[in-house]
């Protein structure tokens, strides 16, 4: 292979200048003129209630109100993987804060005032606010119509229950596996809900113009998927895909929260009601917390067996997810975990039950890590504990069982190339594993914690990417693709990939956020897949362009295309070392022949990538037979944690994370993902502590009470380690990295806490308050007060993991 010149370097971000000068426009910054209308939604105060009547007459009389809209105007369903939502519910509300109507007015203040005048009469129903209750035989049903909703073929909802999806994975014989084990450990872990907290709240502006065209300017990670969901939902109004255009300017943070379609459907629907006028829906910070998506809560029971020598023989992993009132996206999180909850280990006998349960809390959905952060907390905690029981070093235990290329995964497919062993070794060395650190302050103790991680993109088998490339007169070029720049550096990485093939420097490449009218198709920017998937499409487009340049040169000048190559923005020829043709001399205007005519014309290329080797078809009872995941990105991480024995306050003195990215197209951006992801992950264990009251109302929907890290809440030192075991089907060997870096954070801290003070915390978060109380002999749950962080009120250890309601009605 020739030496790479651009891939592997770290050019300045393409969007850097836009962002430090204030030039970057986000949806709310776009100007729409004086006829822009503003919308305010009317929200349900109840977690579960029937809507008896809605009286909009008082609101309609407020001067400046243009239109009041309710579910009667739009009795249409929508959803990404299962259409379980109405744009505005007509029958019942399913979480506190759900939209039941909207007021469109000349200005935002009028809309807000008028929204308060909409009178909604409810009949309260018993809310489903406990997983045990939700799965009882006589449970109150969140969705009495479950079973009738259109859905993707890999979901298995059970009509007449609250069980929205049940992913079962079975491999080998777990009973036999546990018989072969010398040591078995079984325990329960809980992970509450979390909020994404992108600093930009969701916003959408919709314009249904007088000619019948619907344009949406949307703060989204998923322009094409949004267009598709809008087109499906609004089809009864006569709209088709070509009538809908989604434009996505810069997005102020996504983390999964701006994937799929959540509040954006309101903007699309309202625009249809005020033809000719743009209408804006902008979420408040509070709405951002309770009416987009949240990371789902989960209670997980793990039974793990190993031989004396440390060989894992079997795992039984049951996970019951509090998925909220709608699971059109969230059930796929549950699905992804159900396939991969072994973690990155060789486990011969596997039983995984991942169960998606409807509850009356806000809708669960995608969040950086897509379920993997949640199950890794329990699993990686459990591995440490089992290692202790075996009398084995936890890192040695992981190394012994770490997965290798070609190993059979839980669902029968083979593991991709992986640098997991290298990651474990390098993290252990960097963290000085096995050496005790001594604190200067006698009130403090220092411990070390280790965790491995893996994650695959969760994508439909036909999720595809495409790209166009066109040249400009001066030989600079434009890439048109529809990945989304959510901060990860996608634009720069795509430019590097094209630059590598075409020898045009990154500084002479223009690539912008998408517009579905103009840019090539991309499924969504989720799953850490765009460097790989969209990168493959851009590389294919660049190769297409190169082929077309060679073809023109061959036709015009008679040089065989097999002898041509590109260098420094010129076409050169191995057979004629004196020949060189700068791109700018022919990529638009063609090549003139001695006869005076021109050959060629504007050079355009296109490229497409679809993972044709994947399949979601498998036996629903075992998950055997398909190839649901394209590949896993693996790695390891560790922390040195200082714990104050008096206050419980924890400080991460050093964090190390190694991740196998296949090939770091831009090592600087990879390190940015490691640092940012680790800090986001550490926040879920040390600071963020979501709280609902016992009627399902979110209590801390703001940054005062829901603490995300500031610049003063960082580890003293973060060491990113990049490992490069090439992904054979990735562009230049690259695979994804965005989500993975937050996955090991919670478990490595939990393990470090136990190492430091002997306290095993099995319930996230691990706040200073919790640690201090436990160290003083006070059980946190006894004093925490009446609130909940996931839909579960009882003692986790006594949770029965029953799905009897489901079985009975089957």
């Amino acid at each position, binding site marked *: 292979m020739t030496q790479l010149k651009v891939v592997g370097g770290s050019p300045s971000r393409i969007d850097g200048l836009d962002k430090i000068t204030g030039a970057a426009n986000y949806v709310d910054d776009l100007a729409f003129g004086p006829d822009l209308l503003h919308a305010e939604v009317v929200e349900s105060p109840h977690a579960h209630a029937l809507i008896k009547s809605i009286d909009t007459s008082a609101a309609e009389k407020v001067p400046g109100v243009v239109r009041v809209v309710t579910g009667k105007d739009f009795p249409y369903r929508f959803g990404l993987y299962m259409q379980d939502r109405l744009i505005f519910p007509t029958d019942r509300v399913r979480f506190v804060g759900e939209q039941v109507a909207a007021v469109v007015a000349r200005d935002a203040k009028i809309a807000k005032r008028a929204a308060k005048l909409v009178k909604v009469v409810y009949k309260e129903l018993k809310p489903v606010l406990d997983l045990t209750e939700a799965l009882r035989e006589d449970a109150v049903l969140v969705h009495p119509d479950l079973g009738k909703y259109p859905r993707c073929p890999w979901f298995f909802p059970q009509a007449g229950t609250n069980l929205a999806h049940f992913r079962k994975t079975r491999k080998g014989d777990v009973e036999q596996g546990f018989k072969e084990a010398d040591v078995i450990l079984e325990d329960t872990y809980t992970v509450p809900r979390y909020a994404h907290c992108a600093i930009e709240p969701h916003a959408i502006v919709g314009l249904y113009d007088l000619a019948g065209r619907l344009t949406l300017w949307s703060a989204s990670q998923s322009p094409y998927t949004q267009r598709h969901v809008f087109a499906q939902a609004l089809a009864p109004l006569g709209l088709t895909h070509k009538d809908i255009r989604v434009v996505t300017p810069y997005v102020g943070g996504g983390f999964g929260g701006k994937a799929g379609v959540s509040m954006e459907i309101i903007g699309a629907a309202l625009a249809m009601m005020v033809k000719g006028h743009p209408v804006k829906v902008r979420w408040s910070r509070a709405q951002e917390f309770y009416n987009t998506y949240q990371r789902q809560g989960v209670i997980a029971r793990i039974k793990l067996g190993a031989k004396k020598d440390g060989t894992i023989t079997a795992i039984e992993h049951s996970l019951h997810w509090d998925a909220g009132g709608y699971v059109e996206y969230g059930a796929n999180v549950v699905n992804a975990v159900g396939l991969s909850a072994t973690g990155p280990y060789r486990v011969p006998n596997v039983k995984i039950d991942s169960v998606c349960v409807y509850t009356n809390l806000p809708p669960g959905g995608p969040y950086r890590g897509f379920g993997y952060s949640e199950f890794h907390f329990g699993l990686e905690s459990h591995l440490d504990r089992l290692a202790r029981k075996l009398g084995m070093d936890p890192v040695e235990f992981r190394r012994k069982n770490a997965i290798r290329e070609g190993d059979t995964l839980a669902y029968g497919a083979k593991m991709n190339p992986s640098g997991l062993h290298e990651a474990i070794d390098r993290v252990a060395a960097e963290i000085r594993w096995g050496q005790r650190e001594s604190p200067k302050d006698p009130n403090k103790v220092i411990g070390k914690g280790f965790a491995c991680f893996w994650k695959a993109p969760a994508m439909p088998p036909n999720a595809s990417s495409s790209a166009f490339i066109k040249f400009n007169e001066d030989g600079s070029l434009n890439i048109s693709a529809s990945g989304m720049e*959510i*901060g990860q550096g996608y634009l720069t990485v795509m430019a590097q990939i094209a630059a590598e093939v075409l020898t045009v420097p990154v500084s002479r490449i223009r690539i912008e956020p998408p517009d579905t009218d103009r840019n090539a198709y991309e499924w969504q920017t989720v799953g850490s897949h765009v460097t790989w998937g969209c990168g493959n499409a851009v590389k294919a487009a660049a190769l297409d362009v190169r082929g077309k340049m060679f073809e023109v040169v061959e036709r015009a000048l008679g040089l065989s295309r097999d002898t041509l190559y590109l260098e420094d923005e010129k076409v050169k020829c191995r057979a004629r070392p004196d020949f060189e043709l700068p791109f700018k001399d022919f990529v638009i205007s063609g090549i003139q022949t001695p006869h005076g005519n021109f050959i060629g014309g504007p050079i355009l290329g296109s490229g497409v990538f679809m993972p044709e080797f994947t399949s979601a078809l498998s036996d629903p009872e075992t998950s055997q037979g398909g190839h649901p995941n394209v590949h896993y990105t693996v790695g390891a991480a560790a922390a040195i944690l200082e714990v104050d024995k008096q206050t419980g306050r924890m400080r991460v003195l050093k964090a190390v994370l190694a991740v196998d990215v296949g090939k770091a197209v831009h090592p600087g951006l990879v390190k940015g993902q490691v*640092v940012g*992801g680790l800090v986001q992950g550490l926040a879920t264990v040390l600071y963020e502590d979501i709280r609902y009251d016992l009627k399902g109302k979110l209590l801390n929907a703001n940054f005062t009470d829901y603490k995300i890290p500031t610049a003063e809440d960082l580890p003293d030192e973060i060491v990113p380690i990049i490992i490069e075991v090439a992904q054979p089907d990735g562009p230049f060997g690259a695979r994804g990295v965005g989500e993975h870096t937050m996955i090991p954070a919670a478990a490595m801290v939990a393990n470090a806490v136990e190492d430091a003070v002997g306290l095993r915390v099995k319930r996230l978060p691990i706040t200073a308050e919790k640690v201090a109380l436990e160290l003083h002999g006070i059980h946190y749950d006894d004093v925490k007060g009446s609130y909940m962080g996931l839909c579960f009120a009882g003692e986790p250890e006594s949770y029965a993991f029953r799905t009897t309601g489901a079985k009975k009605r089957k």
Partner: protein
Amino acid sequence: MEVEPSDILLDVLRDELGVKSPKIGCERGDCGACTVLLDGKSVRTCLILAIEVDGCEITTVEGLSRAGLTPLQQSFLKHDSFQCGFCAPGIVLSATELLGKNPHPSEAEVKEAIAGNLCRCTGYKPIIEAVLAVSSKPARRL
């Protein structure tokens, strides 16, 4: 210009004057995305009434770089300090205020100066590094 007594400075800047770099992130002073310099001092415009600033000088990022990128902005660019960029205008201004008062801050002082500006993407490290990198050099516009 005329404003209503109840108009919030942030809304006036964005909607009346068309200055869009101060962002709406929380509308309660938590996130710092709406930060501007008011007579050289960083303030959250979501917490200030427009009538309160009559006669004051307001600096936003648009104005800061009118004569070219400041050394601090160049350092942010060089360090790839921002990802999504939504918090960037506020952090650029908070850090500008710091360096104006204290050209050679310690790491702790940098952290304190930007602690009122939330960033969810970067983990702050590349922002802190960029400020420290410029703090030891003489201020000079390129």
